[in-house]
């Protein structure tokens, strides 16, 4: 029995830690309707500034906190001024991509400055422990709880009673109306980013001290858990974020208690999906609250797509088809094979995210389902590889659609978060379902690609195979989009209420989109499995999902050619920057930011 008390206390303690990130995310979401993916990076920056202050400058704790808060706030202001403000009149999705780019740049800058080796960040508080239940808590636990609760309370008071707080709330309810009433929205945004960043920086430092460890990989995890906690509490709701965090901590802790450590994150993400299904706006969203997204239309702004003449497409296709006959190296071919595989994933995502407006952040799960299905069928049941890949695509279509269906009733950012969670769940199920997936050991010895009994092992044959499959899927998708079905998809994206009024069944069309998209992604995963010969739960990770979304936004949402161009660009650029060694991801992030800044509707425009 006493163990349950311990699990509860531990859950609250770790929930405390999540709350620090979640509050900052909630604040920004409240005003900008933006999930700030750079929040984890500010947290990282705060941790390293804290390290410099503590270890090199030997500042006392209160001064350390002030220094970190000020420096992080400054970073936040710079991000707001130069990263996001120029985008405020462009597509709603552009700032999201910008925050992803900013987080790349910040993480890389920290890594280059401090080296990726983890460092110890000693706590400056006396090391006394208080016995609580079967365990103990220390002064740092209390400080973290204090900072979390105090900042949530202060923010609550600030938003409710101060004039700037009113302005923040007014701007979050209706930007245009607030501007008409004379609210300086830019100043509001500045204030919000400054506060959120200061909080993020301090939390990074405190968490670093808590674990006596900081390293450059902490940023993505912090963002993920923070986003989950924030959305559970009701996005944009500051006290809700704190309660959501504590709840998340408790669910994880009880999950460990009942099922064991390796199920921990599974419970975190299941909690998120369950909450979103039952209460699509989070636990603490009031019924009166305006819909979380300006319904639609502004989320994915219409733009004039770049028309590419048919002969140019044909010529490009011909050049790429003939490429292996030219004296190009295997390295170039392999890079393009990667681009075609990513292209299939991007086709899938551009359909569900661009054409029908369901921005998915868990698309790598579809790759994984296709890959595991195809690998296991060809290994255990000796199914010919060509058939196994098709089966992988079908399985991905079926299973993917079923898994994603709970998110059909969600809108805007909530779809992204739900799909992110579903993606993580798939990966964790693969890790834990050992009897089928072989767990962390992974599947090795997957047979190479083959068609009608001929092994495709030479780079040229793999190139042709993947190129042909991608072109076939692209043509099919283009044909689909030109039909009545494509128009219905776009109608749902642009105004789902009007679409429903016209008698379109939203769920049915969303399912159709996911079935087609799931197939393309599953085939891509299947081919990858046979290409790599070894896969495990890490092969298709969250970074792949984020990359796919970047490709889609970069190419132009819903744009079939754009998806392919975006894939070639995002696979090719990091390879081109190889010459820059450690700096290449930094350069890649900067290029991404510039592209978003100057071509927010994507290279080829939204269709």
């Amino acid at each position, binding site marked *: 029995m006493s163990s349950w008390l311990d699990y509860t206390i531990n859950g609250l303690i770790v929930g405390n830690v999540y709350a620090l990130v979640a509050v900052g995310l909630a604040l920004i979401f409240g005003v900008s309707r933006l999930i700030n993916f750079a929040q984890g990076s500010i947290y990282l920056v705060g941790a390293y500034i804290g390290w410099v202050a503590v270890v090199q400058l030997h500042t006392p704790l209160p001064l350390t906190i002030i220094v970190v808060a000020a420096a992080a706030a400054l970073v936040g202001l710079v991000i707001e001024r130069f990263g996001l403000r120029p985008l405020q009149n462009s597509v709603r999705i552009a700032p999201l991509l910008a925050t992803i780019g900013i987080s790349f740049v910040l993480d890389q800058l920290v890594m280059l400055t401090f080296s990726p080796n983890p460092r110890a960040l000693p706590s400056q508080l006396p090391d006394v422990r208080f016995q609580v239940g079967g365990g103990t808590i220390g002064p740092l636990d209390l400080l973290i709880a204090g900072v979390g609760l105090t900042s949530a309370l202060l923010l609550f008071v600030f938003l409710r009673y101060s004039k700037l707080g009113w302005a923040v709330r007014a701007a979050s309810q209706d930007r245009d109306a607030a501007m008409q009433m004379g609210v300086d929205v830019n100043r509001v945004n500045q204030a919000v980013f400054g506060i959120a960043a200061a909080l993020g920086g301090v939390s990074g430092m405190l968490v670093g001290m808590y674990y006596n460890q900081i390293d450059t990989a902490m940023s993505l995890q912090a963002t993920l858990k923070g986003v989950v906690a924030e959305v559970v509490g009701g996005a944009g709701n500051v006290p809700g974020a704190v309660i959501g965090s504590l709840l998340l901590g408790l669910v994880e802790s009880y999950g460990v208690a009942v099922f064991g450590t390796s199920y921990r994150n599974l419970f975190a993400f299941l909690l998120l999906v369950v909450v979103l299904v039952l209460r699509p706006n989070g636990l603490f969203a009031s019924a009166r609250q305006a819909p979380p997204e300006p319904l639609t239309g502004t989320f994915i702004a219409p733009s004039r797509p770049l028309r590419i003449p048919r002969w140019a497409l044909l010529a490009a296709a011909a050049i790429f088809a003939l490429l292996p006959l030219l004296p190009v190296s295997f390295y170039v071919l392999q890079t393009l094979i990667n681009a075609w595989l990513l292209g299939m994933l991007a086709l899938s995502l551009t359909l569900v995210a661009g054409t029908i407006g369901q921005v998915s952040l868990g698309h790598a799960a579809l790759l994984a389902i296709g890959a595991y299905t195809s690998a296991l069928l060809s290994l255990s049941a000796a199914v010919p590889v060509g058939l196994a890949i098709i089966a992988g695509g079908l399985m991905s279509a079926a299973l993917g659609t079923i898994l994603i269906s709970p998110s059909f009733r969600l809108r805007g950012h909530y779809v992204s978060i739900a799909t992110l969670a579903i993606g993580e769940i798939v990966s964790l199920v693969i890790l834990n379902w050992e009897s089928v997936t072989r767990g962390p050991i992974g599947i*090795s010895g997957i047979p190479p690609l083959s068609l009608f009994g001929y092994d495709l092992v030479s780079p040229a044959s793999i190139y042709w195979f993947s190129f042909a499959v991608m072109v076939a899927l692209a043509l099919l998708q283009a044909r689909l989009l030109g039909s009545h079905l494509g128009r219905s998809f776009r109608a749902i994206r642009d105004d789902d209420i009007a679409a429903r009024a016209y008698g379109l069944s939203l769920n049915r069309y969303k399912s159709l989109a996911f079935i087609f998209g799931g197939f393309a992604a599953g085939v891509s995963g299947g081919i990858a499995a046979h290409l790599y010969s070894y896969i495990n739960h890490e092969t298709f990770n969250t970074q792949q999902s984020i990359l796919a979304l970047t490709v889609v936004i970069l190419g132009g949402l819903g744009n079939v050619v754009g998806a392919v161009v975006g894939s070639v660009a995002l696979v090719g650029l990091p390879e081109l920057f190889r010459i820059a060694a450690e700096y290449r991801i930094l350069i890649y992030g900067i290029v991404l930011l510039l592209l978003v800044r100057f071509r927010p509707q994507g290279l080829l425009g939204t269709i």
Partner: protein
Amino acid sequence: MSNLDRRTLVKGSLAAMMAGAMSRAAFADSSEPILLGVSGPLTGPNAQYGTQWKQGFDLALDEIMAAGGVNGRKLAYSFEDSQSDPRQSVAIAQKFVSDSRIVLELGDFSSPASMAASPIYQRAGLVQFGFTNSHPDFTKGGDFMWSTSVSQADEQPLLARYAVKRLGLKKLAVLHLNTDWGRTSRDHFVKAAKEYGAEIVVSEGYIAEERDFRSTLVRVRDASPDGLILISYYSDGALIARQARQVGLKQVMCAASSVYSPKFLELGGEAVEDVHVGTRYFPEDPRPEVQKFIAGFKKKYNGQEPDAFNAYSYDAMNMAAAVVRIGGTDRRAIRDAFAKVKDVPSVIFGTATFDVESRRVKGAMNAELVVRKGQFALWDGKPT
């Protein structure tokens, strides 16, 4: 239109780069260094391990150069950053196999990245020398896959003997990283520990990104073990040790050799005091190759203590040099040389000779250490 131009541009410049690389290769002569390809993480979540590799490589190369190089020629490596991502490691593999200057490849770090590239190396006939690849199936990828990674089937029984026979622990809690390495290690450890007569009362796998172990440690406490076994890397091992002491667990802790790093001491602080570690070498180890390695490392890197990954990469570069000495610059001859090379001085193995069947090295050295006063020291046999 502009899109077409852009694509041709990208493609053109790629092709130009490759053409440049190839023409240079054609003019390679004995004044040019013998080149090894390294595929590993320099950015991304595993970047720390790539930087540790570099330190070990560079030290070994300095020594090889000081001794006159290899067959009268210089030895050098070209490090390509893969982020431990299979998509990038396969592209790097194609780059290396089509670059005729590369005679041997080292890496990658993670199993998905390494084993995805194996078919390419195998088909092209370039040795993939995966010196940290403990996955039992790595060398089954083909006769061009060789590894000096200590097989977990060898290492874990040593750790089990330390914990059960020497420290006298009977009821063990095993905490392991839930990766292919951690899982394989755990299975070998559990098997050996049971043979020595111990009981495994609880076994918990955690993911690499995990930071918070308090609830896991409650499970451990409720199973009332008399010892904790950490199959961890140094960063997560230090976290577990700290939190175990914070929640009041006072049991003996015994950790796998992968925590052997000055960082473990730095990150763990007082909490890792008295933690037992089974390692392959230790600072006061009288073996000459160890003394040379540690002294050289400290000299080159401002007094920094080397860790396990530094030692792996240092050994790997020395092994590569020994193999090239026998095999020359022909890729196939180099593969054959792996079977011929005998008794190469090694920090990890003492002397390393490949078992031709498994293409791995057997018989890792064993040292039983304990953390005393913030330093790794040879265990004196006294109970803690």
